[in-house]
């Protein structure tokens, strides 16, 4: 009714608009980055199907996301951190790995069992990370227990996963699904694959898993509250997305992350004009509680929690709720949320019952 033209045409029209807008927004950036340095690297601990492990997280600078060059996702500013010119040589990539290993040697007592590699693109896209580099990186971490690499679902192929499982590395491919709802992924996030593609990637991982001694699976990354969704809509979208993901064979973990406001994004423009507020931490807690029975590990890592640009509550309870969320990540026990309360839950209740597409954000 609301779309007089065919759905496909509408989608294309929306995509063109989003991309034009995002190209204009991204063009405002001026920084460029050294291709011999990773974007970021840190040590932490993580919940995996094999339990909690020490982890080394690497944001590899691979020249950035191809989709972002066209315009890309409305909330993603990582492309702004990518290298100028757009491609990084094999040698430079290996330099970045060395920097990460040096960092780990300095910061951690012993090598982490879990390696996580994100690229602000697709690690398995050979235009970003060539087969030679992929294999070399697999070699570099062959002595670890587990590895996570990030990729769009199109590039998930059993042979590529085998590069890692072949070393006995349990391998997870992190897929930025954002939401199981195709409409929200396309119109709000401007990401153009479908849930069916995600299911196909999970199936590839399942085959890779069956074909190797080590395990292989998919870790779905979800985005809570993309632009244009009101708080209750965003919460409902996450609950149904987690339920749907957990039902897909091959998907063993869901990482549900609240949208934060990154520079040079459409979300930043909306936020600047009082048109966007990141989700409440209560919303994150609520979704985790509601989906505690789902047949997958469900975790969340609110970035910039408690700040105006990250998921936040009233300012008083943000750290306590964040702690409960991190606790839930490790234990998967929803009773952690019974330990935290705050007066601002009443405000969150009001937002959940009153916020709509024509009054958001109701409370800052």
């Amino acid at each position, binding site marked *: 009714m*609301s779309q007089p033209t065919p759905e496909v045409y509408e989608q294309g029209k929306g995509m063109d608009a989003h991309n034009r*807008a995002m190209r204009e927004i991204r063009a405002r950036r001026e920084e460029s980055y050294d291709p011999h340095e990773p974007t970021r690297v840190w040590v932490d601990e993580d919940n995996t199907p094999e339990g909690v492990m020490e982890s080394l997280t690497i944001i590899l600078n691979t020249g950035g996301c191809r989709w972002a060059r066209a315009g890309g996702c409305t909330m993603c500013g990582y492309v702004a951190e990518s290298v100028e010119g757009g491609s990084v040589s094999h040698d430079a990539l290996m330099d970045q790995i060395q920097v990460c290993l040096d960092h780990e040697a300095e910061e951690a007592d012993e090598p982490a069992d879990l390696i996580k590699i994100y690229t602000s693109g697709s690690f398995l896209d050979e235009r970003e990370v060539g087969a030679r580099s992929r294999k070399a990186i697999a070699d570099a971490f062959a002595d670890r227990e587990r590895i996570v690499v990030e990729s769009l679902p199109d590039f998930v192929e059993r042979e590529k996963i085998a590069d890692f499982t072949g070393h006995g590395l349990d391998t997870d491919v992190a897929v930025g699904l954002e939401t199981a709802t195709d409409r929200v992924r396309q119109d709000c996030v401007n990401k153009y694959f479908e849930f069916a593609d995600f299911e196909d990637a999970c199936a590839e991982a399942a085959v890779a898993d069956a074909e190797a001694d080590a395990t292989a699976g998919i870790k779905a990354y979800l985005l809570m509250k993309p632009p244009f969704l009101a708080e209750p809509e965003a919460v409902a979208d996450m609950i149904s997305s987690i339920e749907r993901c957990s039902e897909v064979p091959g998907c063993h973990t869901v990482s549900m992350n609240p949208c934060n406001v990154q520079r040079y994004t459409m979300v930043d423009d909306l936020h600047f004009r009082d048109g966007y507020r990141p989700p409440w931490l209560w919303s994150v807690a609520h979704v985790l509680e509601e989906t505690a029975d789902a047949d997958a590990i469900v975790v969340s890592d609110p970035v910039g929690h408690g700040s105006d640009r990250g998921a936040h509550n009233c300012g008083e309870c943000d750290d306590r709720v964040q702690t409960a969320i991190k606790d839930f990540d490790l234990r998967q026990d929803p009773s952690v949320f019974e330990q935290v309360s705050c*007066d601002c839950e009443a405000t969150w209740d009001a937002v959940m019952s009153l916020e709509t597409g024509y009054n958001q954000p109701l409370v800052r």
Partner: protein
Amino acid sequence: MTDYFEVHARDGPARLGELRLDPPLATPATVGDRLADAGSLWADEREVPEGSEGELTVLPHRGLPGGTPEEVRESFSVEYPDVEYPSAAVISSASPEAHAVDAYLLSDGQSIVGHGASFVSGIVSVREALQPDTLLVLSGVATPRNVATLVYAGVDAVDAARATAEGTRGRYLTTEGDRRLSDLEELPCACPACRTPVEEFTRADCAEHNENALRAELAVVRQRIREGRLRDYVEGQARHDQWLTATMRELDDRWGYIEERAPILREAEMTAATGDTIRRPEIRRYADRVTTRYRNRFENPLVLVPCSARKPYSESKSHGRFHDAIGWRAHLVSMTSPMGVVPQELETTYPAQQYDTVVTGRWTEEETAFVARVLRRYLERNEYPEIVAHVPTEGYREIVERVESDLALDVTYTVPEGAHPTDESSLENLAEALAGELKYSKREREHNTVRAIADYLLGDGAGDDLFPDLRTTGRYPKLQVRDGDDTQLATMVPRYGTLSFTLEGARRWVESSVPTKRVEIDSFTPHGSVLAPGVVSADEGIRVGDEVVIEGPRAFAVGRAEMFGREMEGSTRGVACEVRHVEEQ
């Protein structure tokens, strides 16, 4: 098409309306509990809802919050279906578009509220883009403090979402403030929620109080609109938040928007108690007309006098004494802030008769400059054989001296330094200054009054064009206007100094070279009133309260406008004009 909303009364951009649901609702009001949200198309596909007569159905929408890039707004704009039940569309003030709905909700209210310039620019562009008789709703922004100004700007309805949410945050809202609950030593309110002792007062109570305070303020606003006195209220109340005062001022600068909606007459008092009164559209319109349309027809000297608190001036004690000294030997023009100058013929004209100012004798530089500007323009247009300024030293004399020097005039001052104009010595000077002058007749006075009012209402020269062979009967100020054959053409309306025409007078107007304020109607003969759907076209210059000629294939009539011209053309409901006389043809 607006089937479910009707505007019953206007007070500038503010409207008193009726949301014709089952049961109906008087607006401005909170409508949150009467909305049925069919949901966002961002989140899901939606069917056209079944709707009901009891609710305003918000059709499936895509809210475009503030900051949404233009191309995204364009490509995700929604085509709203034309449905049979009360319906609302969600639109952005950045790219407002009309749809076949009864009401509109803004998706970017949060971005425009809180900043005067953005808010005014948003509301004005929305109002200009939409059908005039549609309900404009702002959700999630209204507070007891801001709602009067929201309505003053042209918002018809709000909801209590913001007031409720703020209550849950422990923010106690009043028409004059926004406080932390913990900072209150007592509850400054007597609503049911506030009967709890302050120590036991919870955030839930606070949310309830906030809603009560919002509803009570809306009732005040509705009453003010009924009285035609919302601006008087806002001038004071908006002082409690800077952006609200900024909004009122920004609106004063939107001449096209604010003047079109300002009535040409009101029975209500106009309070002139702040420096902002001088920028009211009614005041500026008066100052403009008195210096571009009005023309003095007397050949006697000019006497400038101070205004009086009592209106019309001629009924005041002080003016009675001036009159005794002058004795119809001079043309009397009152100087006043915030009106500027009021020639004696226009003393009953709105708002000269209706304003009530604060009298302290202290003039601000802005008042002085304004009155001087009006007086200068007045004297540039009107020549007198002699000018007498019978004004006090304070304020008035300085203004006259300024203009005297600017225009190289020679003014006689008759009030001695430090004396009052009603002092014997002053009055003696005044009488002496007019020694030897001849009196003008009652006939001349009455004719000049009628013609001056015609000039003021209808345009420069209208008084001469319309009434070349004028006769007046009756007793001032209830004059009857007749032609040489004794046919009555019009009556002077003393309450606001207008003329109401007879059918003969209306014919004379149509045949004259004076631009007619004409409403063209369909083929019917109106009795009592002309409803908006019957209007085929209407002169864009028509303002609420204007005398209008109503013409159609089956009728020639004269009456008074209840809407402004474009509103008559664009509305599908409501009374466009009240008919006074009609002739079938």
